């Protein structure tokens, strides 16, 4: 089926070349990082995880969101999702690949990455994260590819694949839960030390992933002969709506706990986000952008009139995606380190090489996604579904 990715229009080739260009620039910057060390990034002794780990954390959510299609379709036989479930699964494949790549580019000694497998350490959450992420990648490639091959031949998916589909449902929950545990179990990091970290992660995942998928569906309908169907898009929009509302609700819960208890270790981080701390305000504009976009998006989504208008829906979905990227990526990861354990503020901003490496990994993810979608859609076009 891979050959389908090799033939395409000029636009397709143009897009692929742009992605390859970004990947190339990112790769050159990565070579620089390999020779100089992580010193070329903006990370420091105080903010020791930055843009890379932020992307990883956010993208785990995008990957987990495939379950929002798989579950209604396979568990509740919601037929409308039949046409697009594969899009969710392939989105998961590309998102997990990006996650794993971001972990690798973040390592100080990438050549030793296999130490995690050579000396398995079950008390470390990172060990389990490796296990669940790789397992999830495997499950989605297996299921997506098998179902699509069957579809190409005009057959029903083989029955042996069913158990894997069912396993993939709790597995999707597990990848984001385990990722939340990376943060939630650390003493002395008040911002992360919250029991709703995993639920918070899942709710924002189920908003941002399907929002991205809606945008893809709208683009695909424009560019190809394949129509994901209005009803499928509207159902996805409802999922985004509820998940977004829950997500905002959870953030409000965190605010209550921090500000009503008035415990400094919990409060200071939020102060840093809202108004800045000791005069340091780098993330303040970002945080307000998140809040405004989140509220506007929620309004557009809740109102049935605006939700059913596909153009406004697209705007809302873009805002959901961007706002949650700010919240999960920048807000959650970086702010956990600010203030530092000595209650001092050292800020973080990424360097250019760091930004280009990040863009390069995103480009790689989009390339994987483009190729997989190209294959899936060509087959669907052929079959006229």
């Amino acid at each position, binding site marked *: 089926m891979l050959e389908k990715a090799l033939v395409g229009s000029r636009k397709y080739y143009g897009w692929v070349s742009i992605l390859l260009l970004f990947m190339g620039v990112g790769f050159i910057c990565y070579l620089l990082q390999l020779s100089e*060390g992580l010193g070329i990034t903006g990370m420091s002794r105080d903010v020791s995880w930055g843009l890379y780990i932020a992307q990883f954390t956010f993208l785990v959510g995008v990957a987990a969101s495939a379950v929002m299609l798989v579950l209604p379709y396979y568990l509740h036989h919601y037929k409308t999702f039949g046409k697009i479930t594969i899009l969710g699964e392939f989105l998961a494949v590309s998102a997990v690949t990006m996650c794993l790549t971001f972990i690798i580019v973040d390592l100080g000694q990438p050549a030793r990455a296999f*130490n995690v497998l050579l000396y398995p350490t079950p008390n470390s959450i990172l060990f389990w994260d490796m296990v669940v992420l790789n397992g999830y990648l495997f499950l989605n490639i297996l299921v997506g590819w098998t179902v699509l091959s069957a579809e190409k031949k005009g057959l029903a998916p083989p029955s042996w694949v069913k158990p894997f589909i069912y396993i993939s449902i709790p597995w999707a929950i597990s990848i984001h839960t385990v990722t939340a545990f990376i943060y939630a179990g*650390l003493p002395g990091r008040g911002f992360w030390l919250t029991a709703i970290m995993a639920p918070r992660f899942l709710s924002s995942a189920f908003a941002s992933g399907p929002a991205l998928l809606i945008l893809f569906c709208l683009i695909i309908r424009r560019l190809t002969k394949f129509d994901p169907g209005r009803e499928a898009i509207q159902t996805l929009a409802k999922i985004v709506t509820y998940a977004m509302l829950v997500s905002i609700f959870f953030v409000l819960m965190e605010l209550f706990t921090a500000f009503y208890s008035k415990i400094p270790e919990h409060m200071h981080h939020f102060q840093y986000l809202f108004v800045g701390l000791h005069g340091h305000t780098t993330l303040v504009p970002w945080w307000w952008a998140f809040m405004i976009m989140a509220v506007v998006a929620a309004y557009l989504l809740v109102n049935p009139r605006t939700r059913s208008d596909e153009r406004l829906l697209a705007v809302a979905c873009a805002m959901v995606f961007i706002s949650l990227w700010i919240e999960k990526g920048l807000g959650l990861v970086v702010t956990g380190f600010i203030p530092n354990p000595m209650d001092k503020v050292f800020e973080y901003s990424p360097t250019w090489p760091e930004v280009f490496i990040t863009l390069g990994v995103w480009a790689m993810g989009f390339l994987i996604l483009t190729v997989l979608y190209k294959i899936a859609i060509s087959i669907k076009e052929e079959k006229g579904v």
Partner: protein
Amino acid sequence: MERSRRSFLKIAGISVLGVGAKPLSQALAAAQGSKTGPDPRALPGKRWAMVVDLKKPCPDNCRDCFEACHKTHNVPSMPNPKDEVKWIWNESFPHAFPGQEHDFLDEALKKHPVIVLCNHCDNPPCVRVCPTKATFKREDGIVMMDYHRCIGCRFCMAGCPFGARSLNWRDPRPFIKELNKEFPTRTRGVVEKCNFCEERLAKGQKPACVEACKEKVLFFGDLEDAGSEIRRLLKVRTAIRRKPQLGTMPQVYYLV
């Protein structure tokens, strides 16, 4: 016996190849050491701990302990503060003990620099989170780093609630002021921190910082030895620890 004779022959062979007399005698000494086990001079200790006296004056800008430590362990001084590596340093009281200060705190204590370093916690989160066991705890309580095992994921830095760890963001070697050939240097991309001078304890010496402190602010010893100096100090004086509420059980005690 058999092994040491063979290694002797090997070393003798190398020396015939013209390696020279001094390395030979050193290598022989090393071979003997391995035959007899740990150095007989090694300080015996079941639970190492440090005591810092906050009541004794540290003369202004005295940096003897930091300099001794950083020199002994080849800790680089990075030009860019972002890339900083440090094992032992000063914080002010409110920063070393966030939440512990109040308006009426003894002025002397408020002004007193607080020497901070890895606490060699009894329940160390850095060990718990490390995915490769590059950070591990010894029987005698010292929390150690294996620089060859570390992948530089920095999970331990997120886990340590005392900011005691540093990553080598760049190759540290060009930034070592004065190389101590007795102690290894590190490569870029690995984490490091205070090791309670385990290499000195093994030779019967006290930690470098304790030895360098002329004002007798720092004390070191075995907590399980009821007769030790630090046990006596902890008995007669009141000691506080950093962030005890987190349950990491720090083993650096501050006398107030």
